[in-house]
């Protein structure tokens, strides 16, 4: 299974293609595609919406969607940080 991701063109934040054709920062609410349909979904992405759209492997886990496959660590950090959190610099080991 695949999801389409990219960075919001204006602000740069990580976003995922949603079932309604819009974009969401929440991977759990991303549209999920079978491999064959994923390429078509990626091709249909408007260049005005996102920068650098690409496909990631995902699994559907109940009602949520999680990153999967070889890039799971990269995509997990990309989605969850820690650097995206406002207080991450305050955390000292």
């Amino acid at each position: 299974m695949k999801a389409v991701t990219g960075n919001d063109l204006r602000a740069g934040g990580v976003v995922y293609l949603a079932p309604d054709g819009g974009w969401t920062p929440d991977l759990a609410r991303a549209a999920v595609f079978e491999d064959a349909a994923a390429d078509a979904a990626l091709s249909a992405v408007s260049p005005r919406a996102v920068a650098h759209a690409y496909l990631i492997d995902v699994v559907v886990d109940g009602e949520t969607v999680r990153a999967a496959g070889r890039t799971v660590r990269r995509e997990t950090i990309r989605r969850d940080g820690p650097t995206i959190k406002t207080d991450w610099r305050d955390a000292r080991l």
Partner: protein
Amino acid sequence: MYRYDEFDETIVRERIDQFRGQVARRLSGELTEDQFKPLRLMNGLYLQLHAYMLRVAVPYGTLSSGQLNALADIADRYDKGYGHFTTRQNIQFNWPALVDVPAILDDLAAVEMHAMQTSGNCIRNVTTDQYAGAAADEIEDPRPWCEAIRQWSTLHPEFSFLPRKFKIAVTASATDRAAVRVHDIGLQMVRDADGAAGFRVIVGGGLGRTPYIGDTLRDFLPKEHLLSYLEAILRVYNEQGRRDNMYKARIKILVNALGIDAFRNLVEEEWGRLDKHGVDLPTEETARIAAYFAPPVFNGDAGATIEGVAAAAPPHERAAFERWLKINTAPHKTPGRRIVNVSLKPIGGAPGDATSGQMRAVAHLAHRYGADEIRVTHEQNLCMPHIAVADLPAVWRALDAAGLATANIALASDIIACPGLDYCALATARSIPLAQQIATRVAAREGGEETLGELKIKISGCVNACGHHHVGNIGILGVDKRGEEFYQITLGGSAADDAAIGERVGPALPTSGVLDAVDALLDVYQARRAPGERFLDAYRRLGAEPFKEALYDHADA
């Protein structure tokens, strides 16, 4: 400091107007991302893992307090309240919105700064010794020559589309604090037999996936011919460097393929053909630029000593103050002055980061006590090069209050680390958390890290080596193995005058083994070092074997 003339001002303002139009065309959809990408990169704007990243040029690492305050304002107004100082003496903002970037560039231009040539296959920001103009051991201040290179290379039409990026570093001291042997071109000021100043020209150094220590191209180049000789080198590289494979496109690959003698012949031949008078600076222009870098007038007490100010410190502060004096300050060429290094490596913090408040604190101190000058170091710290010895107690207290007085310059916790997978789209592993954990571990060693002496640990999150791991005394390279982070250890590297590429000592270690591995290496060093011997010297004397045994015996345990 150098001040923009009307040409600098016009170039920067016109470029901002141009980029503002490009951003508008991108937002409207008139430009695709593929069309826009090279345009934004030429203005220092990357797209990283989580967001855009804007890399701002700090020419040869020199900032005024007004400029540092402006960077703090940008951090607050357009970013998340902090910035990251880099190994190219630049600063990166990790969270700017594309729509805000033209306004950020306006704010930078207002303080004579920009983001041009901080990316792309062009001549990047020239770097130099952070002690330039203050070092007791320098032949002359190298920054006028850096400024000449900056002017010559800015939007140079012939060298805007090189085979690959190109980095130049300059030092005028025998002690190399600018890593000149691991740059595309390294320039080291030397004197000839008659005492005239010129440059030793080193070429073909570099890190990345194919590291090289540079070769000496010329033992002595009269300094007045610097620009024409650089032009000859760049022209040979531009014509003969590979463009078919980006991993083989740096000048180091060309120099290595041809051999230094053949490369030298090509450069000398080209230089012989060049109209030197059309490129080299006239004497009066050299003098005009140099006048901007005149040493600041010092009216303080030339007889003040660090022993004296230390002795006068209140008893409850004395030990910490003396330690900071010893570790974070360095001799100045003017009696009564001292160079103050500002550590951006708090134990457990992200190397090279500074909050807007910390930037303003340093700017204030530089304005009040430091001739209005701040330097960014290639080791991701800041430096105030002109502090009166008598003012050291006040400067130390203010830095301490701002969280900037960690006494660890050149010690094991003064780690260079690239942003790694916590920011970078190219990284394959994290660097920052490892740096934080290693710093915490070494600082907690018995006797403190001071007992280890000088020890350079450098961490990269991928083979591009932005964390300079090849030249770490202990180098750590993050790699991805079947989706897991592993770390490859190299030993014996150095970026200084004894430059060397570190040796890989065995297979990569899992994340869980790295901290104990570093401890094991340090245990061997402390057990077997001669009195006063640095880690690097002990490694070179003892060889890899005892360290390797400790590393992998430990990993096997």
